[in-house]
C-alpha cells in the first residue's frame, strides 16, 4: 500500500553549495539521496512531496561540511502481510499449486484441471501477501491466491 509519511534525515552539505541557493541544493541532494531507496521500516521511497522543515546547520569538526536536519514528506510504498494486492505475472516458474498443472513450452503457464483458469506471463492476479522479507534494497513477498476472491482477474490469453 502507498503511504504518505513524514521522515527526517540529516543532510551533509559541502560548503561550495552554500549561498543563495542553499535550500535548493539541500532539496535536490535529498531527492537524489532518498528517492528510490528502500528500507524495511518504511518501504520504497517513491517520491518526495514536500519539505516540512530544514533545521539549523551544524558544522562538523575538522571538515567544512555542515549537517542540516531535514524533515520531509514523501510517498512510500510498502507491502505488508495480509495485504491484498493486484499484481502482474512477469515470470512463471515451477512452484506448482495443488490444484493447478504446470505447462511448459514457449509460454509456460499454470492451468487448472478443467482448463478454466490459466496463469501465464502478463496475467493480472489478485493475491494476498502471506510473508515478506526485507533486503537492503529490495522487499520480497510471498503471496497466495488460494482463498476466496483471489486469483486471476485479467487473462491476456482470453483477451
Amino acid at each position, binding site marked *: 500500500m*502507498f503511504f504518505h509519511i513524514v521522515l527526517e534525515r540529516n543532510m551533509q552539505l559541502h560548503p561550495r553549495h552554500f549561498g543563495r541557493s542553499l535550500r535548493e541544493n539541500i532539496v*535536490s541532494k535529498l531527492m537524489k539521496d532518498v528517492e*528510490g531507496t528502500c528500507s524495511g521500516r518504511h518501504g*520504497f521511497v517513491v517520491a518526495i512531496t514536500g519539505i516540512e522543515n530544514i533545521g539549523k546547520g551544524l558544522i562538523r569538526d575538522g571538515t567544512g561540511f555542515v549537517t542540516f536536519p531535514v524533515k520531509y514528506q514523501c510517498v512510500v510504498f510498502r507491502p505488508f502481510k495480509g495485504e491484498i494486492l493486484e499484481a502482474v505475472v512477469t515470470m512463471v516458474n515451477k512452484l506448482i499449486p495443488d490444484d493447478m498443472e504446470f505447462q511448459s513450452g514457449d509460454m509456460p503457464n499454470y492451468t487448472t484441471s478443467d482448463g478454466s*483458469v490459466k496463469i501465464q506471463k502478463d496475467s493480472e492476479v489478485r493475491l494476498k501477501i502471506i510473508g515478506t522479507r526485507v533486503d537492503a534494497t529490495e522487499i520480497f513477498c510471498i503471496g497466495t491466491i*488460494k482463498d*476466496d*476472491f483471489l486469483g486471476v482477474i485479467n487473462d491476456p490469453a482470453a483477451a
Partner: protein
Amino acid sequence: MFTMPQKKGVKSSLKSASGKEGTLKGKDDNSIKSKKGRKVQFDTGAGEAHLNFSSKSGGKGDTPTTFPKAGGGQAGKGDKTFSSGKSSVPKTPQPLELRIENGLCQLPTIYVELPENVKCLMACEAVDILQVIQEQMVLLSKDPTIKASLAFDRGLQYAKRGSHYTNPQSVRKVLETLTKYGVTDGEMCIIADVCPETADEVFALVPSLKAKLTLLVWEMRIWTVPVVKTCMDDSHLHPFEICTTFSCHLSCAAGTEGAM
C-alpha cells in the same frame, strides 16, 4: 515455510467466488478443521498484530475496549510463532466470533513499525500526488541532474494500474462513513483499492472487519435501521452487510460519477 489457511473447494478465480452461504460455510469448516489440529497459528499471530494496529493508528472509531485481551501482543511475536511452524491451536474452547477475530489478516503489522504521522493512501490518491510531481519534473527536466527514479516510474505505473477511481475525494468521503464503525484508515484504503462488488468480497479480503462485525453490531443496528428501511428491503441481510454493501454501492457510484 509459510502455512496457509486451507479451504475446501475454493477456486482461484475471482469471478467464480462462492456465494454468501458458501463463504460462511467455508469459515465454519475452517474452525472445525482447526479443532482437528489444522495449522491455524498463522492467523492467530495476525490477530495480535491487528490489536496493535488499532491502538496505534488512532482511528476515530477505534474503541480501546475493543480487544482488551491481547492488547500487549507484538507483531514480531506473531511472526515468530508463525515461522516456527508449530501451530498450537488454543486449547480452551472459544465462541465462533472469537475464532473469527483470531483469523484476522496481518494487515496491521506495518502500523506497529511505522510512526504515527502516516497516512494510508488509496491507489487513486497516490496517482494524483505522483502525477503532480511528474508534471513538475517535466518542467524541471531542463536540469539534467533531476531525473525520475526507477522507483518513481514503477510506483506511478503500479498506482495507475491499481487505481479504479478518478475522483479520490468522493471515494474517501463515502468510505469515511465507515470510520465511525471502527473501520480504520488502512482498511478503508484496502476496500477502495480492491473495489469490491459484494459485501462477501469485502469480508473475505479484509477479515479484520469480521471482528468489528461482532463487536459493533449493536451500534450498527441503530445506524442501519433507517438504511434497511429506505435502501434495502431484505431482512435476510445482516446489518453490517447492508452497511458495507451500501457503502460499496456508493463508492462505485462515486467512481462512476468521477469518471464522467
